[in-house]
């Protein structure tokens, strides 16, 4: 009997989202010859989620353009699919995954890419028809059908998903009201300058806001939502509700198998868990951020791709990818928001450009180190900022603030 080498190991991937699908692709790209089984609980092949709240809602993208790879790619590359397959249990000593259907799938190497799910609001009326989340293509399809000229959308939570959906709703001729618990939108993920700018921009596009507003009950008639009752008793009438109050990692499978979890599955820079045969990648992980010397959970496509590369490289004994600066983007109306880095322990903000003209960037410094940049319609500030964050060399706040000094010059 020959020993199993990693190159012909059987790799089982649980989760067929952007991370899981990309891991299968990178394994084949890097020359993996063994069996690959990709288990996903949705009926669809791996697809891109970011367009769901943008191009997809507006009818500008179809299923083909969303999918990561065409259907034939999986057969041609010997990637076995188990769609609508729910992994129920991992047996680490036997090295098997048991699906809810009862099927037992053996692995040499397991990659957990189970992602995150939309956080639910535990309030009365959450089960009414028309109270939606936005995480999957099926969610997006429901929301798309509920929107249209004259329809009234109530968004619970002023985060990126909610704001993008509100912008798309306005483009479709629907009314949109964003209800936010905090005093400003994007409170947990952006600085105040950016929050106020986005509120103002959305306001000018006809989006209404209820800030500092708690949600008490979803009201309904005949099983369908008709309004959102706020904590102060007022009711926001609506035809559809989108609950966008964050996501929670699907880390229960790992936890039940005795793996370390802490708001996500704990992994190292190879995306490996404490069990050398088990990796975890994407939104479900609590991962090291070497630039910031801490562990953190990221929800982003670049993170999913980076960790898919880390795992595939480690499995095949290749050098891992260069650590990346975390980054994020959002498209709303004609705004391109690009964010690089995370403002950990930042003690100073520098604004460059013209906020009123919707072309500016906010830099976040910790001492003289750049921690993060938030750029609106300002690609040079984003690109140069991302490079400066990676370099960890001192930056001059005065130069950053001075638009007459080009970003090229600031970055060198």
């Amino acid at each position: 009997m020959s020993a199993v080498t990693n190159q012909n190991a059987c790799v089982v991937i649980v989760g067929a989202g952007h991370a899981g699908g990309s891991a299968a692709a990178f394994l084949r790209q890097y020359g993996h010859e063994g069996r690959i089984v990709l288990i996903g609980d949705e009926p669809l092949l791996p697809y891109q989620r970011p367009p769901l709240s943008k191009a997809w809602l507006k009818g500008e993208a179809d299923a083909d353009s969303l999918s990561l790879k065409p259907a034939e790619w999986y057969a041609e590359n010997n990637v076995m699919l188990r769609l609508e397959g729910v992994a129920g249990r991992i047996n680490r000593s036997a090295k098997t995954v048991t699906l809810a259907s009862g099927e037992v799938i053996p692995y040499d190497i397991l990659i957990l890419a189970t992602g995150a799910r939309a956080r639910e609001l535990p309030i009365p009326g959450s089960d009414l028809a028309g109270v939606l989340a936005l995480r999957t293509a099926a969610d997006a399809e429901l929301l798309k059908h509920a929107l249209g000229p004259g329809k009234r959308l109530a968004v619970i939570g002023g985060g990126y998903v909610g704001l993008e959906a509100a912008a798309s709703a306005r483009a479709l001729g629907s009314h949109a009201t964003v209800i936010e618990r905090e005093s400003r939108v994007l409170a947990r993920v952006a600085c105040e300058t950016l929050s106020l700018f986005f509120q103002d921009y959305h306001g000018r596009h006809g989006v209404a806001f209820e800030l500092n507003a708690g949600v008490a009950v979803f009201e309904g008639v005949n099983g369908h939502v008709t309004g959102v009752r706020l904590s102060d008793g007022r009711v926001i009438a609506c035809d559809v509700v989108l609950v966008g109050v964050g996501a929670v990692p699907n880390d229960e499978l790992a936890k039940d198998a005795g793996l370390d979890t802490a708001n996500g599955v704990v992994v190292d820079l190879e995306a490996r868990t404490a069990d050398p045969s088990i990796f975890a990648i994407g939104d479900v992980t609590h991962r090291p951020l070497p630039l910031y010397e801490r562990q953190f959970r990221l929800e982003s496509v670049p993170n999913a791709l980076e960790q898919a590369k880390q795992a595939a490289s480690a499995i095949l004994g290749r050098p891992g990818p260069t650590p990346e600066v975390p980054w994020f983007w959002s498209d709303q109306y004609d705004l391109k928001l690009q964010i690089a880095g995370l403002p950990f322990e930042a003690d100073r903000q520098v604004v460059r450009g013209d906020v009123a003209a919707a072309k500016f960037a906010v830099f976040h410094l910790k001492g003289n180190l750049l921690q993060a940049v938030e750029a609106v319609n300002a690609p040079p500030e984003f690109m140069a900022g991302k490079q400066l964050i990676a370099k960890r060399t001192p930056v001059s706040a005065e130069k950053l603030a001075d638009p007459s000094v080009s970003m090229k010059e600031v970055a060198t």
Partner: protein
Amino acid sequence: MAKITYIEHDGTEHALDIKPGLTVMEGAVKNNVPGIDADCGGACACATCHVYVDEAWLDKTGDKSAMEESMLDFAENVEPNSRLSCQIKVSDALDGLIVRLPESQH
């Protein structure tokens, strides 16, 4: 279908039939061509789908937008024939297009 040839930095060629309407980036990603990462999926937000367009095809691939220009400005190893492949739409007019990939996208 338009025949597009992607040439990796090490010289490996991928001659592929790409459906008009897709972008040159999507054609590469859907066929798992190594070296085009396309982190943002085509939103012109990341500059990780950088290619060099063969000189003979520069006219047919059109002009860069201001957004593309400023993203490319900060990419590595940029040349006059550099483009972001998510911004080039495949059409019958591009049948035969040749693009070369940089050593790295990051």
